[in-house]
């Protein structure tokens, strides 16, 4: 029999592994990743008049609301930063996190029809969603930088451009990785038990209130600060503001705590995702 001398290139059996794809295989699907990102951009603005301008209008409208409600009406302190600058930074960061998370946590539910008809490494899908939101975030960041420049020229906002600016990409990257990590975990859980979808939407709203989006950590009474600081996103949000304005309540150990947690979550989630995704096709 010639089959005994054969060297098989692939094998399919009931066991699924934590490492289901070789880097070579993933690399071959880079075109799919790029295509999916492009598709999501195109789809968001089909049959809209303003088209991609919505990337900017959406946070601006949120910003106006936040300034009206939280600053003018309730009067939450924003530390030494002008409310517009403070909220704008919080909103674009939070939107990036929350959109990436919600998008990737729906991976199975939204793509069940594709997953059940064609094979490709499933992880490409959530990664493409997070990447899409990352690109949107970068565009919003550009707008935000223009706002900062305006404020530093025409008001007393002082930019602290020093070595801390290097922390900016770190904070952004890890917020994205965190969204991907928890998104992958939730996508696995909600794939089979849809009940959790409701909990997830509720949960993400609650998490916003223990993240310094609409208030700085310093605005919290000291004995309650641990509630906010246990959240691995908190040091990153503070780090973001610190790197631009020198205004943020965060220590180096807190940053490492946050990075450590995120790395663990992401690795764990990726491994579990690889292990479980093929089994879930039967039930989605």
């Amino acid at each position, binding site marked *: 029999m010639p089959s005994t001398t*054969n*060297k098989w290139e692939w094998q399919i059996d*009931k066991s699924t592994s934590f490492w289901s794809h070789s880097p070579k295989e993933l690399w071959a699907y880079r*075109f799919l990743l*790029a*295509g999916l990102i492009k598709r999501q951009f*195109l789809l968001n603005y089909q049959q809209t008049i303003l088209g991609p301008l919505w990337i900017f209008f959406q946070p601006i409208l949120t910003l106006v609301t936040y300034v009206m409600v939280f600053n003018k009406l309730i009067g939450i302190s924003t530390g030494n930063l002008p409310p517009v600058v403070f909220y704008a930074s919080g909103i674009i960061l939070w939107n990036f996190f929350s959109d990436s998370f919600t998008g990737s946590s729906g991976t199975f539910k939204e793509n069940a029809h594709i997953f059940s008809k064609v094979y490709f490494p499933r992880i490409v899908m959530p990664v493409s969603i997070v990447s899409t939101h990352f690109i949107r975030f970068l565009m919003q960041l550009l707008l935000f930088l223009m706002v900062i420049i305006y404020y530093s020229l025409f008001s007393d906002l002082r930019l602290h451009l020093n070595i801390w600016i290097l922390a900016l990409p770190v904070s952004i990257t890890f917020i994205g990785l965190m969204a991907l990590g928890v998104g992958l975990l939730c996508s696995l859980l909600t794939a089979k038990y849809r009940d959790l979808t409701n909990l997830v939407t509720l949960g993400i709203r609650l998490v916003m209130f223990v993240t310094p989006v609409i208030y700085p950590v310093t605005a919290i009474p000291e004995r309650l600060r641990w509630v906010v600081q246990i959240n691995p996103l908190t040091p990153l949000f503070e780090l973001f503001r610190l790197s631009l304005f020198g205004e943020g309540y965060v220590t180096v150990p807190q940053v490492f705590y946050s990075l450590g947690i995120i790395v663990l979550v992401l690795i764990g989630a990726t491994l579990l995702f690889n292990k479980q995704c093929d089994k879930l096709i039967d039930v989605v």
Partner: protein
Amino acid sequence: MPEVVITVEHLYKMYRLGSIGTGSFRQDLQRWWTSSVLNKQDPFFQVGEEFDSGKYSQHIMALQDVSFEVRQGDAIGIIGSNGSGKSTLLKIISRIVRPTEGVVKGKGKVSSLLEVGTGFHQELSGRENIYISGYILGMSKPEIKRKFDEIVAFSGVEKFVDTPVKRYSSGMYVRLAFAVAAHLEPDILIVDEVLAVGDADFQKKCLGKMREVSQSSGRTILFVSHSMQAIKNLCDKALWLNKGRMQAFGHVPEVINKYLNNNQKTNFRQSWDNPDEAPGNNWVRIKSVELIPKLEHSENILDIRTPLLVKFQFWSMKEDIVLSAGLLLFSISGECIFDLPSPTTLSHKGVMEGECLIPGDFLNDGSYYISLNFVKDTSVPLFDFDECLSFDLQDYRGEIQWYGKWWGTVRPKFPFCIKQADMVQK
């Protein structure tokens, strides 16, 4: 012999029936506990006959102990009735679902086309959809760019390539979607029943493309279809699945024959006592149809030597019509073998009868059915009585020591001989 590119070994696939709720959550916990923590076998899966007993009626075995080998360049047709596990098998080989037991090993790049238009999005234009569905099927950007014009030409939607596909007619949509898939260049191509969509012309084009792929470039194809004709045209081997079990694997005509024989029911006689209940209309109503095999001994089985007498009676409901009957014989795959009109007769109100003798040693072995029709004035159709009789003819070879499938729909015994005309002198 070409090398083996896929081997399927003892494949099982179990699906859980019913809805997912608290019950399934409990089972999940139980399964996780016994198989992961206690390291025992899955309590809901045991290979054996128990599955048929109804004890595990919440589960269905979509595939049971399927094993076969595919060689380089094979075109394998997979046949079976609905729910026989064909698509499940393809999904496992395409890595979409995991088997419950068993293993598939292979080499080479596999592309599968289980549905036309996977990854297509209604809102996007034809051009964008070509790219995205190409990527999903595993093509690279340069590859699609190179073949773009060819794909568009094959689909025939040149003018609409920048229009959102939601404005396409369903035919255009299907053509475009298939065109992308048709330009894949995998080592192994897996195609589910996708040709059922589209018009006859397009189906022909698709089949042609697939034949080109399998024959000229020597690629391996696994192909599911309900069209026996397509399988015969395209494939050199066939696999018959029945309720998840493999019934036959081998040469196409033999496997198809077994499958068709298994599926058909013989029907030798139908009769009605009351014209009001009988099939027909206010011209003619059927009283009886009957197939009488002229067997030498009544316990003999029908084989290709048996003459068959078809007898029928019907009520002629009107006075003075110039009537003729037609007898049509079909093979089980629906090809008409003959359409035999009777001479015309002037009929009066009352019972008419007719008979026709199909001689022995005329038809090949296989399954056949008979339809009757009634015509007025040699041109006005009155009534068609479709598929009123059906029968099987078994093979008979006599002295011939060869057991392959005999070709042809008929196997007549025309006078035929060979003889020595000249001899080379020793």
